[in-house]
């Protein structure tokens, strides 16, 4: 008997196919696979209350992640559907339609605002019997009648004030096809007072259109906006991925023991792997179902939610098929992949679990390579994200993802290094640090979700703060001087005066500064051939009104002022040439292409004085010829516009609505603005709100997973805890050790998150060519939120800890 004594080749390695002996299940048939997967599923589904709890937690965790992913996947189609709907009902003409036919119709805007809610109104007047109808409307409303969106119908029913403004008889409702969301406030009203404008866009109040849905334009926000959107998605979805990965690893240690028991009765490595995969699959498939359920339930709820006037129909929030298929395939595959990865460093032997690499330090270099590669991907874009340049979305997203993943990759190494150096201290500290030294990996995994979320949020916050100026505009408006601005096209000065008087007489109005403005041109305009006409604004108003718009000292009826354009406004050359005392102007305004009509010449009085412009209450600077009505007969003006700067009584909160009601009666095409000192672009606001909502959701997810992991860890150590209590360890010491055990990795994670966040933030700022400016308060806030989540989790795990520490923990199973 002298067999070779050394050949243990491949003894403990997974059979990788090499070697002479065939494993009996090589080329494992479908049945073998099915059996092992089913066995895994049986483990996931079995195991009594505890096993179910774990599976349900996994499913809920994965489900929450899946729901978020589905939501994200539903955004692009939702945007597309909304865009399609918006385009389909567009009533703007694609070009000038000169002649009415039996299928054309006239349309005019009748938008208004009520209590900060924007209402879109379109007035329609068919030219003939075959006129098109807008989407969602079967029959054009007759004059004095309208069709309304259901939301507007409800609003009108509850608001008599608004009903006065939109008094048309309600004929019916606009169908879904014509609305972007259930909360949209929209109406189409029939009119018989519309007249088509001429080719010069004058002398009418409506556009002639041949139908609906001709124009397509998207509100392009520019590359900075795209950058924000990309980073936001990355920041919000990456923790979701981390969370899903964490969720499928719940109960990992228990599973390893279970698999060891199976190895004993003859399961080989591949079988245990398949069984583990089956377990992960079961949880993640259940998670998919839960996620789908959550998504569809949430979608129904979404129809009741309106964010800044934006709502959506559940049916429109359908995830893109490819994305949905991707999610359905990727989530279980990820679950299986994560399981396989977690098994990779673990040899499950029949007598238990052997963790490989114990004592072998983690190597740091490949961990550092990840964020560096991310940075390298972002580098070429430094200073290039501005204006209308195109953002390389994929490169940017990949770079950002790598930088964030790099943070989580470095985390275990940092935790190991730091924790390995901790020594001594009180009993609680010692228990915590020794435990962490044994399984620093689990600790790092526990906080990696928080780390990614905080790092991403810090970077985003920095970018937001820096680009704040891009999106929040100083309007220059001064709400203390006037609160409402009204523009109305008028036929003549008399009508303008009448309008202003009616506004001034409105309830809640203290004063209305009314003026008329129109455009004049050079006196020889009718002889100009090349179409380059001078553009010379004319403002006619009384002295108090002119004082709001120019620095006028002495003013009396009959005064005329010449206000030169401020820097960057108008055309200083033509202003110098034509706006001079004694020179003549043609009040038959500047034509667009060729001169029409007859010149109406008017001489600037020699008494005209020059005055500097003054910022008016709305924040605009005007220039041109400023005259009192006694000096210039407003009936000479072509296409005049009546303007009113309205001062409201602050004690009358509905004053704005009364003004709007008044102006609604003035005619078609009257605009009312409220004066604000700043304006914010709407999408930016939504982005910011989206970030906060997403961050809250992500943090909640992470908190939930942390809690589950903590409880699991406690359950695993039940006996140990009971023994510690039995020989007199203070409960408070154990509580502290639990806190330390969470707090140490979390503090490390947060420090790393701040570093990573600053790095990514700096890179993003460099991309948009903005100076590095750390947002310390944002960092503090995000870190505080992260720490609060962990503290909350620790607190929530105290009651079970107390329960576990009761002496019956000593009882053997």
């Amino acid at each position: 008997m002298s067999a070779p004594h050394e050949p243990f080749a491949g003894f403990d390695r997974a059979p990788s196919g090499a070697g002479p002996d065939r494993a009996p299940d090589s080329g494992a048939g479908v049945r073998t696979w099915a059996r092992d997967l089913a066995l895994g599923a049986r483990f996931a589904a079995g195991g009594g209350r505890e096993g179910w709890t774990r599976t349900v937690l996994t499913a809920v965790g994965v489900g929450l992640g899946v729901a978020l992913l589905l939501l994200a996947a539903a955004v692009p189609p939702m945007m597309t559907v909304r865009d399609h709907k918006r385009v389909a009902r567009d009533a703007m003409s694609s070009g000038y339609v000169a002649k009415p036919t039996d299928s054309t119709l006239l349309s005019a805007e009748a938008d208004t605002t009520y209590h900060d809610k924007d209402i879109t109104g379109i007035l329609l007047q068919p030219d003939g019997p075959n006129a098109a109808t807008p989407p969602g409307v079967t029959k054009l409303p007759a004059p004095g009648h309208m069709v309304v969106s259901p939301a507007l119908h409800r609003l009108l029913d509850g608001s008599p004030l608004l009903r006065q403004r939109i008094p048309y008889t309600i004929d019916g409702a606009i169908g879904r096809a014509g609305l972007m969301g259930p909360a949209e406030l929209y109406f189409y009203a029939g009119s018989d007072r519309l007249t088509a404008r001429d080719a010069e866009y004058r002398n009418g109040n409506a556009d002639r259109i041949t139908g609906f849905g001709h124009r397509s334009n998207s509100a392009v926000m520019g590359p900075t906006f795209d950058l924000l959107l990309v980073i936001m998605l990355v920041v919000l979805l990456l923790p979701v991925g981390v969370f899903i990965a964490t969720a499928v690893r719940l109960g990992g240690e228990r599973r390893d023991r279970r698999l060891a028991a199976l190895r004993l009765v003859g399961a080989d490595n591949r079988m245990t792997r398949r069984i583990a995969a089956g377990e992960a699959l079961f949880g993640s498939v259940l998670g998919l179902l839960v996620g789908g359920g959550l998504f569809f339930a949430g979608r129904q709820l979404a129809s009741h939610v309106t964010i800044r006037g934006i709502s959506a129909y559940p049916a429109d929030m359908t995830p893109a098929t490819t994305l949905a298929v991707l999610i359905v395939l990727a989530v279980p595959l990820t679950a299986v992949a994560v399981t396989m990865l977690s098994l990779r460093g673990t040899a499950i032997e029949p007598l238990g679990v052997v963790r490989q690499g114990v004592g072998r330090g983690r190597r740091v270099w490949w961990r550092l390579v990840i964020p560096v590669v991310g940075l390298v991907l972002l580098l070429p874009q430094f200073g290039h994200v501005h204006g209308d340049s195109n953002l390389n979305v994929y490169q940017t997203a990949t770079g950002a993802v790598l930088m964030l993943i790099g943070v989580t990759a470095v985390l275990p190494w940092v935790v190991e290094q730091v924790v390995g150096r901790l020594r001594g201290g009180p009993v609680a500290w010692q228990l915590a640090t020794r435990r962490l030294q044994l399984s620093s990996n689990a600790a790092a995994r526990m906080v990696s979700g928080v780390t990614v979320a905080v790092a991403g949020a810090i970077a985003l916050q920095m970018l937001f703060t820096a680009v704040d100026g891009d999106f929040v505009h100083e309007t220059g408006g001064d709400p203390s001087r006037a609160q409402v601005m009204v523009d109305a096209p008028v036929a003549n000065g008399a009508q303008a005066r009448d309008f202003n008087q009616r506004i001034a007489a409105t309830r809640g109005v203290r004063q209305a500064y009314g003026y008329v403005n129109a455009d004049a041109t050079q006196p020889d305009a009718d002889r100009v051939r090349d179409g380059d006409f001078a553009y010379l604004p004319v403002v006619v108003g009384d002295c108090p009104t002119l004082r709001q718009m120019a620095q006028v000292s002495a003013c009396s009826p009959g005064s005329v002022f010449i206000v030169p354009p401020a820097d960057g406004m108008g055309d200083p050359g033509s202003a110098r040439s034509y706006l001079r005392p004694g020179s003549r102007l043609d009040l038959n305004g500047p034509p667009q292409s060729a001169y029409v009509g007859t010149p109406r010449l008017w001489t600037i009085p020699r008494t005209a004085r020059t005055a500097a412009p003054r910022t008016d209450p709305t924040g605009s600077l005007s220039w041109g010829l400023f005259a009192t009505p006694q000096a210039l007969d407003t009936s000479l003006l072509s296409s005049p516009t009546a303007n009113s700067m309205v001062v409201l009584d602050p004690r009358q909160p509905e004053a704005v609505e009364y003004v709007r009601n008044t102006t609604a009666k003035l005619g078609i095409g009257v605009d009312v603005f409220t004066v604000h000192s700043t304006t914010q672009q709407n999408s930016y606001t939504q982005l910011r709100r989206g970030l906060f909502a997403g961050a809250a959701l992500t943090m909640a997810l992470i908190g939930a997973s942390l809690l589950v992991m903590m409880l699991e860890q406690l359950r695993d150590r039940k006996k140990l805890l009971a023994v510690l209590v039995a020989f007199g360890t203070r409960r408070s010491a154990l509580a502290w050790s639990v806190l330390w055990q969470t707090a140490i990795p979390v503090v490390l994670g947060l420090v790393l998150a701040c570093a990573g966040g600053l790095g990514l933030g700096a890179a993003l700022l460099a991309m948009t060519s903005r100076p590095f400016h750390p947002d310390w308060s944002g960092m503090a806030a995000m870190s505080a939120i992260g720490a609060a989540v962990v503290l909350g989790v620790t607190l929530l795990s105290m009651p079970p800890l107390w329960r576990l520490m009761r002496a019956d923990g000593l009882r053997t199973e």
Partner: protein
Amino acid sequence: MTTEPLLQATDVRKSYGRTAALDGADLTVRAGEVVAVMGPSGSGKSTLLHCLAGIVRADSGELRYRGQDLTAMSDGRRSALRRSDFGFVFQFGQLVPELTCLENVAIPLRLAGERRRAAEAKAAAWLERLEVADVAGQRPGEVSGGQGQRVAVARALVAGPRVIFADEPTGALDSLNGERVMRLLTDAAHDTGAAVVLVTHEARVAAYSDREIVVRDGKSRDTERVS
């Protein structure tokens, strides 16, 4: 004795780090016999059993099962051997807590490719035989230690193994339950013709064997060879 040895270990050595757990162990197991491996704690009894069963890799020495070299087998082959030819009863921890007792017993059959219904029918018969049919639907955590061990014995026997490896199978049981488990185990093994390698430090448990070998300081003396 004329029977061919079923399992033969010659000069098996195994160290954990610097500690030598086995320092030249010999053992022969013939078909159908019950061999007790005795010795004080830490003498290397369990290590010998683990080596014999192909669970642990020996450092040197020869291990033959029915003429095949156990040490040259791949993990897959050894796993397959554990499924088809070996059964295990340990002191504790070998039952899968998630599965019911019946399912636990059925597992080796299912791993070997048998259909669930057939596997569970056989398992039920074995539970009956070991007088634990009443706990078939319960989980290991819900049954007593003695019942759990009998379930484990049923599982060890269900696939019709040639060798059952039992490592302190009564270690966690009181005398009465221990005796009962030993009686059932040896009777069943006798009836099915399976050999039993029984590691124990208790003489009363070893008394259920046909012969014993003693492991002392990692060396074993097979009394059959000595005498």
